[in-house]
């Protein structure tokens, strides 16, 4: 066993864990798409916004402090208290639920019978809006997010595996990544349980299959939308915490979230397992590609690898890995 083999294993493991993070964002897309047919481009920005809100609440920031200051000439900054992490998470979640209400009330309601492509473009607008709004509310500087998750490499694993081969210094895996993976798995499991074993969950699935059927069950479509957007907000919050803890809360977070798009294309827009498997494939694929080929072509291939992979994949299987075959009716 050469060191290279173990390094490859390490890359794969890292890829898997990154992939889980992608999946986490992708899950939000899938939830909304299944229930309302909206392809929510703003999912990434929602994660960013959720993370910013969390940090803001946690650190006792005064919302819109900059704006209030320039308008009224005040010098507001912080309230001077710090909110315990758990309570801050609950509050941030409430904000995201409130946000879901607003989206349904002011946007979706008015776009009910529009083309999917129009809805998609509306969510791009929403993404822009939220990005500006989040910056206005909490400031645009890079923030550090600490919810008490362990950071840094796992020393135990590294030292335990060091020396398995010549020139191999042991597996380097990030503690946070491992935690994130665990949380993501719990989240996915609970989502699946939710949609299979609760009344609301079943209603959500009914809506995905047939709007009329759902109406006959007696749940209003608008309620469903609020629920799924709230759920998506929750998922975004979790994703935001993970990504934010890893690389700080900043604008690029919303771009990382874009990676969820190729994940979805691979996994299919309507499949939760698809989102997970797709995330893994993308995560592992891009890390391996960078590891194996990156150095020869200038590196930073993660920027595009996922998209190109998804593109090529789609040409041969337009419905994605788990999507249903599209039959054109005449």
């Amino acid at each position, binding site marked *: 066993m050469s060191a290279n083999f173990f390094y490859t294993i390490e890359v794969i493991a890292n890829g898997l864990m990154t992939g889980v993070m992608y999946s986490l964002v992708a899950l939000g897309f899938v939830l909304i798409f299944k229930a309302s047919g909206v*392809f929510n481009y703003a999912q990434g920005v929602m994660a960013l916004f959720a993370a910013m809100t969390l940090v803001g609440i946690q650190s006792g920031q005064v919302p819109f402090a*900059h*704006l209030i200051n*320039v308008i009224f000439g005040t010098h507001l900054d912080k309230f001077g208290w710090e909110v315990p992490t758990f309570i801050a998470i609950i509050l941030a979640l409430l904000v995201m639920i409130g946000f879901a209400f607003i989206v349904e009330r002011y*946007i979706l309601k*008015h*776009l009910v019978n*529009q083309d*999917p*492509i*129009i809805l*998609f*473009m*509306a969510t*791009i*607008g*929403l*993404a*822009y*809006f*939220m*990005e*500006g*709004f989040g*910056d*206005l509310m909490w400031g*645009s500087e890079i923030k550090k997010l600490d919810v008490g998750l362990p950071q840094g490499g796992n020393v135990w694993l590294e030292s335990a595996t060091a020396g398995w081969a010549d020139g191999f210094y042991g597996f380097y895996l990030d503690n946070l990544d491992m935690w994130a993976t665990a949380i993501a798995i719990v989240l996915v499991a609970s989502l699946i349980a939710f949609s299979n074993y609760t009344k609301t969950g079943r209603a959500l699935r009914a809506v995905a299959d047939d709007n009329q059927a759902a109406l006959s069950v007696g749940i209003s479509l608008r309620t469903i939308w609020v629920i799924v957007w709230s759920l998506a907000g929750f998922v975004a919050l979790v994703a935001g915490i993970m990504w934010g803890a890893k690389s700080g809360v900043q604008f690029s977070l919303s*771009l990382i979230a*874009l990676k969820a*798009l*190729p994940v*979805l*294309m691979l996994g299919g827009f309507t499949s939760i397992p698809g989102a997970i498997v797709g995330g893994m494939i993308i995560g592992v694929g891009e890390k391996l590609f960078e590891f194996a080929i990156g150095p020869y*072509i*200038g*590196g*930073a*291939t993660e*920027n*595009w690898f996922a*998209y*190109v992979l*998804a*593109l090529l994949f*789609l*040409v041969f299987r*337009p419905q994605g890995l788990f999507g249903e075959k599209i039959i*054109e009716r*005449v």
Partner: protein
Amino acid sequence: MFYRESGDFKTTYAKDTQTFPIKLDRMGYYTILAIAFVVIPTMLVMNVGGGANYWTNAILLPFLIWAIASIGLNILVGYCGQLSLGSGGFMAVGAYASYKLMTSFPDLSIFIIVLLSGAITAGVGILFGLPSLRIKGFYLAVATLAAQFFLVWMFNKVQWFYNYSASGQISAPTRSVFGFEVTGATASAEAKYLFCLVLLVGVAWVARNLTRGRIGRSWMAIRDMDIAAEIIGVAPLKTKLSAFGISSFFIGIAGALFFAVYLGAAEVGEAFGIQKSFLLLFMVIIGGLGSIFGSIIGAAFMVLMPVLLKNIMVGQLNWATDIAAHFEFVFVGALIIIFLILEPHGLAQLWRLLKEKLRLWPFPH
């Protein structure tokens, strides 16, 4: 109100299908052309108000160039119904193509260079359009992100594209048309302006011609109902690729101008990042999907609006620039949503409705 159409009747199909069938519109069109080609250049030469360079750089050039790009994207999205988020990447192709051509063939007229850059971009566009046969809707939109990220990465990493310069930047040497310098540091404001204007008028004219006839109808047929289009003999792939090609041709021209005439020097990630793709998409949505006129006013709107916001918030209210920038995001985002809800066909449709009202005046309908 101002329309007097009675007695303005058509005796041939050519007159019936002309671009401005109403006399007043025709007159308005000629007036705008006269202002654009005579009045504005004169004012620039005379430097009326002393801000010729500011006006050219802050408003006129960006407007003209974005209008070209916007017409390009509108052909793909508005006419052919293929959503693309890769426009920034295609602009970059135009920019780098023009850079390579300018540095490789110093004697070539910049006019030819710009057109060639467009042609090269068209080729790249067609390549990335190939999957459109199998992928539809926002699947395709996401797929075009591949073009965006891959192309930007490529221009960043492959040194040949920027002639191995240390900074990784490209900068435009001085080149001229008919003896007038239009690129480089010494080019005059009016020369740059006129050069871009001529190209915009040319692009708009070609776009109008393409969209009014057989090809335009085949694009719209694919957009409105691809199955029915196929049944009357429209070959889907060929049609979509032609839209990708033409669209990218225009976007490539815009990219070349954006780099060579407007920026002068550029770094790919910054100048042609994904934000540019979205900006262009917003121009098309706000201006009006499926309207050449809409593309132009959409570009005007998206160029003017930030300048205006900045002037008000930074210039008048003395706010910090970053707050103004955040506001711009909020404003643009809200505007997009509002337009999609209230008027999915954008400013062009509002204009059409207004015109319809004026034509019916004093009657309400």
